[in-house]
């Protein structure tokens, strides 16, 4: 809990730094604060996990592991932000503060122990993001993204809140433990209100994670928002949303699996295909990543389909793998776009000749997204497939495998552009911050892929 308080205070401090025009202090202070948050989490690991503040939050291993992942990813994103918003913007402090606020919300979503807290967490996370998506005030696409995100977000929050209300009506409590007791004590006599609540929560959370058929906001928002904000959304926010999704369903709704599983199965399959097939026809690298993020949401839904003790580990590894690769992909995209002004695949032509190491990093990231062995993405997919196969959902895995093969087409397009389509171009300048982020992300991807034993068995 001290971590959450630290983070909130940090965000306010950063706002004040902005007031005093201490621009150069923003990044170091934010990083320092995030690192101390990390330390606080790590210290908490050994302690006894008890619900805090009248059962509002519970920092068990699950929550801490996901929180640490979110904080680490935020650090990477902040490192990439050095100089990103400098040109023509005076709201840099707000940018840092909003990211930190959003992160605070994300941590609450991973650690909630009360449905009210889930709702508040999602709102803190999202409201900050509505602003962030539109932080480029004069950019039309950015404005559109912000408005779309806000409207659809508010809409989905309605579903979520209605679902929470129905659950409360049936069980008489917001507390996860009590709701669980209500379900477990008499699964046959669960009120119809409760079933309605589950469905509404399913819809609301599917909106938040960008799963089909509630995904329509995602491509436009991811495409329109500034690249760094998209990175933050696709990594930290998605990880937190999935952590919350799984936590709720694993904790409370497992006995009623027969009821919600068919709906979830359909959603999963549709998400996989829509994300993949639409990604196939994109000519913009950024938009391709946006659609591929939908298909990855489909793979991550596997963990909820196969809900069980090993699900949390699978989601953790998958989210880490996906996020690390995304950070590399978007980081490279920022550099390429800065140099060429375009985010199309053609903008990558001939990159390998001039920037061999940058190209190698992006290649590893793409291989990880495609799920090739020795990268983290493979271990993630492997665990997802294992989980679902343990439930004998062989057909679902076969469909997923088809999608994985389709994925090769669009992930390899950028590799093909970089290596096999020669073009005379200038060398991209990669500053120290970017180098650090790329090296860290790639090493972590390979480490997770080659020797994942250090992270398995953690949660």
């Amino acid at each position: 809990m001290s971590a959450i308080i630290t983070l909130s205070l940090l965000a306010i401090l950063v706002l004040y730094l902005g007031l005093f025009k201490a621009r150069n202090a923003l990044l170091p202070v934010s990083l320092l604060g995030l690192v101390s948050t990390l330390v606080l989490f790590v210290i908490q690991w050994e302690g006894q996990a008890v619900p805090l503040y009248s059962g509002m939050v519970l920092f068990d291993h699950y929550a801490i592991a996901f929180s640490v992942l979110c904080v680490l990813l935020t650090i990477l994103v902040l490192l990439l932000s050095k100089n990103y918003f400098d040109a023509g913007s005076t709201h840099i402090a707000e940018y840092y503060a909003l990211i930190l606020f959003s992160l605070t919300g994300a941590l609450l979503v991973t650690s909630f122990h009360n449905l009210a807290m889930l709702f508040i967490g999602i709102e803190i996370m999202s409201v900050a993001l509505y602003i962030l998506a539109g932080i480029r005030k004069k950019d039309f696409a950015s404005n559109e993204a912000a408005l779309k995100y806000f409207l659809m977000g508010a809409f989905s929050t309605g579903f979520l809140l209605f679902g929470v209300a129905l659950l409360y009506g049936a069980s008489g409590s917001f507390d996860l433990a009590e709701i669980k007791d209500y379900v477990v004590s008499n699964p046959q006599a669960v009120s119809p209100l409760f079933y309605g609540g589950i469905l509404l929560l399913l819809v609301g959370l599917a909106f938040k994670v960008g799963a089909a058929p509630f995904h329509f906001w995602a491509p436009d928002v991811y495409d329109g928002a500034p690249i760094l904000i998209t990175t933050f959304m696709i990594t930290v926010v998605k990880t937190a949303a999935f952590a919350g999704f799984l936590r709720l369903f694993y904790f409370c709704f497992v006995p009623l699996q027969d009821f919600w599983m068919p709906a979830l199965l359909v959603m999963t399959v549709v998400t996989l295909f829509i994300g993949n097939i639409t990604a196939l026809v994109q000519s913009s690298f950024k938009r391709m990543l946006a659609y591929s993020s939908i298909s990855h949401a489909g793979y991550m839904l596997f963990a909820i389909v196969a809900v069980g003790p090993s699900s949390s580990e699978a989601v953790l590894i998958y989210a880490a793998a996906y996020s690390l690769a995304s950070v590399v992909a978007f980081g490279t995209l920022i550099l390429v776009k800065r140099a060429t002004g375009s985010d199309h695949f053609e903008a990558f032509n001939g990159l390998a000749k001039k920037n061999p190491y940058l190209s190698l990093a992006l290649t590893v990231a793409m291989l990880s997204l495609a799920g090739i062995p020795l990268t983290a993405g493979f271990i993630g997919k492997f665990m997802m497939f294992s989980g679902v196969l343990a439930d004998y959902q062989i057909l679902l895995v076969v469909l997923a495998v088809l999608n994985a093969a389709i994925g090769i087409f669009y992930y390899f397009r950028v590799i093909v552009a970089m290596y096999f389509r020669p073009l005379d171009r200038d060398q991209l300048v990669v500053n120290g911050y970017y180098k650090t982020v790329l090296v860290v992300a790639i090493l972590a991807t390979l480490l997770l892929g080659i020797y994942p034993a250090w992270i398995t068995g953690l949660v």
Partner: protein
Amino acid sequence: MDNLFILLLLPVLGAIALAFVKQAKAARQLALLVSLVSLGLTIPFLSGFVPDDSIQFEQQFAWIPALGIHFHIGIDGISLPLVLLTNGLVPLIILSAFSYDYKGGFYALVLFMQAGLLLVFTALDAFAFYVGWEIALIPIYFICALWGGENRIRVNLKFFIYTFLGSLLMLIAIIYLHLQVPSGDYELTSFYQLALDSSTQRWIFWAFFLAFAIKMPIFPFHTWQPDTYTEAPTAGTMLLAGIMLKMGVYGLIRWLIPVAPLGFAAYGHLALVLCIIGVVYGSIIAFKQQDVKRLVAYSSIAHVGLIGAGIFAWNVQGVQGAMIQMVNHGISVVGLFFVLDIVTRRLGTREMSDMGGIAKAAPALAILFLVIVMGAVGLPLTNGFVGEFLLLMGIYQYGIWYSVFGGLTLILGAVYLLRMYQKVMLGDANAKTSDFADVRGTEWLVLAIIAVLVIGIGIYPKPLLHISEAAVTELIGKVSLINN
């Protein structure tokens, strides 16, 4: 020095070092050195190997213990010939690339692939096998797509997706089998002991079969092969045809049939028929080719079809024939592709009609090429004869008509390969071929080594056959026991 970890790790370390070498000359020398050391390190395994049915030189460590995954490797009579083949051919392939100005990256990919191949041939854990299977694919994709011909981007993407899809199906089967194992591991021996019901084994059979059939390739999963072989740079073609397709053949013997014996009982016949169709089909199309590289690519379909048929006949002669023919085919095909590379590079064309009369200007090449062609045709006293004889004998025991059609490889092979030899080497010289420079230096060395191997194995194949005999006999006994 008989530590398998070292054998697997050396090419990886070599690859990492080579990735930073920018000069072509230094790169090729370092690459050759690493591959020769690998070959040297193989010798203790060969000399220390006891030719019985046991698994030797085992190594393992707990890789991902939480998921029951162990990095478990070892060598038995079935894997040793393939390890030898891999480590023996890689130096030759590297030597054959000396005429090109490849930088460190190229050789790094070759060595990285070597590590993947070795892992496939030594893995005793299904997860490790799968990882090796995939990491052999990535380098060859880049080798073919970076240094290949005109259509390389489209052709190689097709190749990659085709094989990737096949291997993912295999991954499903592997995970499924793992979930049935009581001890919760991925060990080969645990998979062998599973006695799953017939309907389960049937789909397991197909999941594995598709992965292996695409890799080999068996008709009708071969459509990626001619284009990929033709568009690839010669070193890539050699890796693909010489070593990589043996991954599929090895998979049939090691994984497919023993793991799903009831599936094999149900569909083995169909698989054998597909293989025989491949023999006839590959031979006929090879006969129609004008492009020499394409011709050898199709001939490879025919030869591999016969090897596959020998395995699906599942008797000692057939499988032993397959074992030795895998080695022979690797040697011959590398030799053939290298000769064609020399010829096409000097003449600037792959069309047979533009060639002819080279023998006069290049007598050394003519003799060496003749020996290699004879080996590929399967003339007595060459290596090809031993293998094809055993294969046909094995297939004959399965059914006489299959061996009749399978035997067509010998006849048709002689027809199209000798026709190729005639058109390329003999006849009247044209303007280009009349001053054809003969082979010398590394070119001569590579071809001479291959020719010696072709004749050496042809005259005295016993040591090679002896390596795998006990292991093959035991495996066949085990599986037919289940089937009865």
